[in-house]
């Protein structure tokens, strides 16, 4: 007695619709009620195919003179009789069929990350959400106050903080819905806490970068460094969102987060680059200023400052530039 097989009926998208345990052959398949397996597919004939097992144990499929025929896939070839391997798909009408043995290997079980660590408990705890939000709002207010030299009123503070929190809420809600659909739990607290921590990261890194440019007065240094936060922080956020809301592995979630961030920042920089004026008549120099306590070093002497400026006077002038023609 040969081992029983599982016959799988797949729809045209490759999704398994039915499974039948096959313990004896022949098996006749068709749309009629007199078949062993009855298909609903209107492109299948009343009696379409028959499966047999020959003396050496191979499975043979024969076409029972159907209207639309029997096909092997990749390439799509019509057959009268066809010998099939385990897991090989055949097509009748708009339905695919394959056979698998009982010991066919299956994927590893997805790990459900509902079992939390201590850290996880803090990040997913609804009680912690107001704590993190207060910290973020406090940090933002401090940043906003120190960034400005104008008097700060409650009104304009609120008008600054509000958009930030609207963003946090919308973003977290969207990911909560993804979580709900894919992993059957909302995790709003987790997404909201993660988003506010990442936003706080921007307000911590920005002053750091501008401080670095202050002590190393190179034009555009802070802007270039801020690429780190512009790329890195969204990556962290997306990675966290994806890991919590989807069954993606660390590797896949990481790659998705990196590619998405690079793409978005790349497009934004491209837009900025396109809008840059072709010629700038104003000087470009490092403009960052901080209080004296932030720069403990002494400055250069005046002679030293001007010592290496000769390179500034060297300009390449392309010969095709519009030069007034000389007089005849």
């Amino acid at each position, binding site marked *: 007695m040969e081992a029983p097989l599982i016959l799988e009926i797949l729809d045209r998208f490759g999704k398994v619709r039915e499974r039948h345990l096959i313990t004896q052959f022949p098996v006749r398949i068709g749309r009629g009620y007199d078949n062993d397996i009855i298909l609903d597919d209107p492109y299948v004939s009343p009696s379409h195919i028959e499966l047999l097992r020959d003396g050496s144990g191979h499975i043979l499929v024969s076409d029972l003179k159907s209207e639309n025929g029997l096909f092997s896939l990749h390439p799509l070839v019509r057959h009268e009789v066809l010998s099939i391997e385990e897991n090989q798909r055949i097509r009748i009408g708009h339905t695919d069929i394959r056979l698998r043995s009982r010991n066919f290997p299956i994927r590893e079980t997805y790990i459900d990350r509902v079992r939390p660590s201590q850290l996880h408990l803090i990040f997913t705890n609804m009680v912690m959400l107001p704590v993190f939000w207060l910290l973020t709002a406090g940090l933002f207010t401090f940043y906003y106050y120190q960034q400005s030299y104008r008097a700060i009123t409650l009104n304009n503070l609120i008008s600054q903080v509000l958009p930030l929190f609207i963003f946090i809420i919308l973003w977290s809600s969207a990911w909560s819905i993804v979580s709900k659909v894919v992993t059957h739990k909302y995790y709003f607290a987790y997404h909201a806490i993660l988003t506010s921590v990442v936003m706080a990261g921007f307000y911590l890194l920005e002053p750091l970068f501008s401080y670095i440019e202050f002590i190393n007065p190179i034009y555009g240094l802070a802007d270039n460094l801020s690429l780190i936060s512009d790329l890195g922080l969204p990556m962290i956020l997306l990675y966290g969102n994806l890991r919590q809301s989807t069954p993606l592995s660390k590797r896949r979630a990481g790659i998705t987060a990196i590619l998405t961030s690079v793409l978005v920042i790349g497009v934004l920089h491209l837009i900025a680059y396109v809008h840059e004026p072709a010629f700038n008549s104003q000087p470009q120099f490092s403009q960052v200023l901080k209080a004296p306590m932030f720069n403990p070093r002494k400055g250069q002497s005046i002679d030293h400052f001007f010592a290496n400026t000769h390179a500034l006077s060297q300009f390449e002038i392309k010969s095709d530039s519009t030069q007034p*023609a000389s007089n005849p």
Partner: protein
Amino acid sequence: MNRPSHAVRHPFVFCLSLLLLTLTSIAPVRAVTTENVFNRFKDRLLQVRIIDNATNSKSVIGSGFFIDQHGTIATNYHVVSRKVFKPEEYRIEYVTEDNRVHQADLISIDVIHDLALLSGDSADTPDLYFRDQRLEKGERIYTMGNPLDLGMTIVEGTYNGLTDDTMHERILLASALNPGMSGGPSITKDGTIVGVNVATAGNSIGFLVPEKFLRNLLKTSKTHKKQDYMQVIRQQLFDNQNKYIKALLQKPFPTKHLDSYSVPAKLASYINCWGDSGDDHGPYTTADDYCAVKNNIFLNSRMSTGEIRYNHHLLKSDKLNRIRFYNLMEEYFAHPQTSLSGDKDDFTEFKCKTNFVQKGKLRLKTAFCLRRYKSFDGLYDMILHSASVTENQRGLITTLMLSGVSYDNAVAFGKAYLESLAWKPR
């Protein structure tokens, strides 16, 4: 890119507009009336037109006059500047008193004093005279030209001496000059040239280029023939900046106090300074000081040069903490007030060096920037822009701008400027 008119470079007061005036025939008369002067000298006057070859229409009009009997014409450089920069695109015509149109060629230019000489194709031309003379303030002067293309006009005015607040001598005239009179002569009643009409500063205030510069140009123009005018302009600008920068660097800059900082004051009689102290902006106050040269050198409608401009801003606050105060400093530092413009046909972009400079206890964050004139090798616009990083709630932002100087002069002047800055804690 906007093409700013050269007037934009004088945000303070001075709106140069071109004027012109013509002169009629000469003959001593007993009863001197304006009418006599006009009738006597009007055949020496002409209208200068710059014609666009592509469309054959007038692109610039000005005035001019004969200064010898071989058809040599004097006018302003700014009337013919288009021909100088784009000789293939324009030609020069002039219209004499009898309404006949003639062709003219450039012989010589002086961009520093805004003069040009043309050779006309008229022969045996009647001319106006150069004669050594001493004019008294209030003496009558007849200014002639073709204002606004309305026809030859004479205006009676008075001589008011030489200006002492311009870098290059100008005669101050109380008379109504109008656009189109540029390049025309101002003469005495007997036809002696006093100067060439060049600019107006509004109602009945006009300026003339003194006739001695015209005589110099006439003298030197006989020594050379056809020339590369870009090279001529470059040489004139180069020599001119060497002269005035060297003169300014003869001795240390005079300084003045702006709170606890000492800063360069008025460096020369032709530099004008304005102050604006103690503006209250709520959490902070400012005191500002601006200095600039009154007239600079017109090259073409896009470019003027020869400017010296510097300004100081003192910022003070007892309400802002040091972090917030330096945001304010940064805001001012990020926008140097240089009034510079220019486009890529004429200039490279700026290249800058930024670093901290120490002068005694005064620590400055300083940017030194240069851009090159594409047509005039070795000439640069320079910006030296500094902010003090010395006190917690008080700071100085000072900006120097020189246009059309050599690299060596830019550095020498920059050094002298920084040397003149100081901080004396109280």
